[in-house]
């Protein structure tokens, strides 16, 4: 049982990992992440990579929606911008892929600022509609700016190269995707130890009060949009290298809804929420496959008959979590932590 953590300096108080168990668990997590590609087969490795890409995008959206309170349904469109930028750079300029990723994030961030401008006048659902509009405009551009985007056919992306090695297998790609994800998540966690992050939270809680406190709304709202779009752009860039083809249909509007659902289910306004939310949304449909498969011996033609059931169960699970845990999966994790912290006493 930990009864308290005595801090002797402001530095210690603001540290990312404040307790011993936290440090130990983080070390264990990093060790697991390093060994994963050696134990998982291609299927699980594929899912892990897809999941981590979603984690980046969801974390970005969480910064914007969960921490700054600006509802956005355009995150997938920003992923598309990043993906197209990377694909175009790979085709036309042949620049190194890490640079491409950063530029993909940069272009996406620049567009994010433009799309974020309405947020100065509209809030909540109205802003959500404005971002939907932006994503449809971007979709139109992807289809019709053929010289750059390749129109409906899209762009085939050459594999990422790292010191002359082509990253074509999931094993190879994991070593790029995972470190980038860890870096991005760490960045997001650190952001909320700074003035910028705290300004975001102040804007979410009451924008007028924030302005009275001396936080320029224009600057910080747009900054939040830029950061969220940067995350989406990098995620989209990784997506491009992962799937190797980018078309206007790669990032449908539903992908934005998927990401918003991920942070709501995971827990808005917590870093861990973005991670577990993305994990839940990506992995649950796949885990349900195993349930279908497991029922196979008892139900003839299980895959055909039970696939619709799988979709329904997935939906029901989301509703279930929202009803029983409105704070998201992150809250469940917090509760488990509290339980062990106070064990053997009751929470």
């Amino acid at each position, binding site marked *: 049982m930990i009864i308290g953590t005595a801090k002797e300096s402001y530095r210690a108080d603001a540290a990312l990992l404040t307790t011993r168990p936290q440090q130990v668990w983080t070390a264990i997590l990093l060790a697991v992440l390093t060994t994963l590609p050696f134990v998982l087969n291609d*299927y699980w490795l*594929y*899912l892990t990579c897809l999941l981590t890409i979603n984690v980046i995008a969801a974390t970005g959206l969480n910064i914007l929606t969960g921490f700054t309170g600006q509802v956005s349904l355009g995150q997938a469109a920003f992923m598309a911008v990043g993906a197209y930028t990377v694909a175009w750079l790979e085709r036309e300029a042949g620049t190194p892929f890490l640079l491409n990723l950063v530029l993909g994030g940069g272009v996406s961030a620049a567009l994010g600022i433009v799309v974020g401008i309405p947020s100065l006048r509209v809030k909540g659902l109205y802003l959500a509609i404005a971002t939907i509009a932006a994503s449809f405009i971007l979709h139109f551009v992807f289809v019709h700016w053929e010289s750059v985007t390749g129109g409906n056919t899209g762009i*085939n992306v050459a594999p990422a190269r790292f010191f002359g090695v082509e990253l074509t297998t999931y094993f190879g790609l994991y070593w790029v995707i995972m470190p980038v994800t860890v870096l991005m998540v760490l960045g997001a966690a650190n952001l909320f130890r700074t003035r910028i992050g705290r300004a975001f939270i102040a804007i979410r809680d009451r924008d007028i009060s924030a302005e009275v406190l001396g936080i320029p709304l224009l600057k910080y709202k747009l900054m939040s949009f830029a950061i969220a779009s940067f995350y989406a752009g990098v995620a989209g860039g990784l997506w491009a290298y992962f799937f*190797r083809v980018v078309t206007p249909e790669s990032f449908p509007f539903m992908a934005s809804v998927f990401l918003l659902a991920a942070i709501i289910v995971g827990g808005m306004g917590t870093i861990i929420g973005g991670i577990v939310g993305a994990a839940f949304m990506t992995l649950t449909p796949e885990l349900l496959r195993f349930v279908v498969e*497991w029922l196979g*011996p008892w139900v003839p033609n299980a895959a055909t008959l039970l696939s619709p059931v799988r979709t329904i169960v997935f939906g029901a699970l989301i509703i279930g979590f929202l009803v029983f845990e409105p704070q998201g999966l992150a809250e469940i994790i917090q509760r488990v932590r509290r339980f062990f912290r106070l064990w053997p006493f009751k929470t």
Partner: protein
Amino acid sequence: MFKTTRRATLALLAGATALSLSLTPARAADNDIVIGGSLPLTGVFAFAGLAIEAGMQDYIKIVNDAGGIDGRMVRMAYEDTGYKVDQSVAVYNKLTSQDEIHLYYGDSTGFAKTIAPELARTGEMIMGGASFASELNNPEAYPYTFMAGPDYSEMVGILLEYIAKETPGAKIVLVNSDTEFGRDPIEPTRARAAELGLSIVEEIITPPGAADVSTEVLKLRRARPDYTIFHGYVLSPLQEFMSQSRELGLKTKFMGTFWSMDSSIWNTVGDPADGFMGVMPYRYYYDDAADAPMLAKIREMRPDYQATGYMQGFLSAMLMVESAKRVLANGEELNGKTLKAAMNTIEDFDTGGIMGLPISVPGNSVPVGRVYQYNAGAGQMEPVSDWISLQE
């Protein structure tokens, strides 16, 4: 007494998940030849996925009842994708890590394009699928892909061939959906129409889910075409186009391509659908032509009507099995290269009447089809042309 607390429920859920994961049947390394499949059993394309699955399973049953390939049984391993590319890839990875797979059925153009580099890298299999995208009909860029029919440009090509014969110099309007699927054949259609002396007087692009087509119908009225060719839709908004044009007294004939040619979808429209024409690479379920013994067999196996997707799946499985047969007969190993080479040796092959001509697969497609017309009274599609082959 067991109390249902939140904790207990969660523990139960976790337990169930762990149990289902641990009980996943570990498949023994058997001698079966496995056909893998990323099939859309839910979502917008589920109607096709279910039909395709039935068709493939039936052909596999016929093969196994006859003793399999060289004594080896054929089995299908497939899972639902919801018609989403990331899930199709997940299914591909799942199935390939569970079984040794050399034959695969993919559900969309997006998936075929996404997985192509992986197919080239592993060189383990050939892949057919529900996509007839012209882009895939390129043996150099997509060496391990095939389609069990003409590609979309060839489908429209077959229609143009028919039009040129029936009404030389006819005026045509193209209506395409604003998707990759819809825009696919536009360029080659322009070129082919010019060659055949047909004039394309208007090109209309509609959003994929368009319900209100009144402005498009006015364009149609201004253009006064002899034929209007739709591509990139399944049903909607074709029926709106047809009923509105009829009200305006337009005499144009409406045509479509494979995915909008199932007669059961037109049965739901009824009378306004009468006279709708289109290209179909396979015979219909109810076709009782004398040279189609396979259809009699299908009717025996399935007493109810089977959709066009069924025939597509059936023929896809047939081409896959035939290729595997030829590879094994040569004493070669099953892989992408040998299977594709064997498929390309298929020449004047009798499909049992699924296609009306003996077929050859020199490249990635089988450019054969026939023009049918919907008869609302009978609720059936009736042939109005002979079988047209674009080979030679």
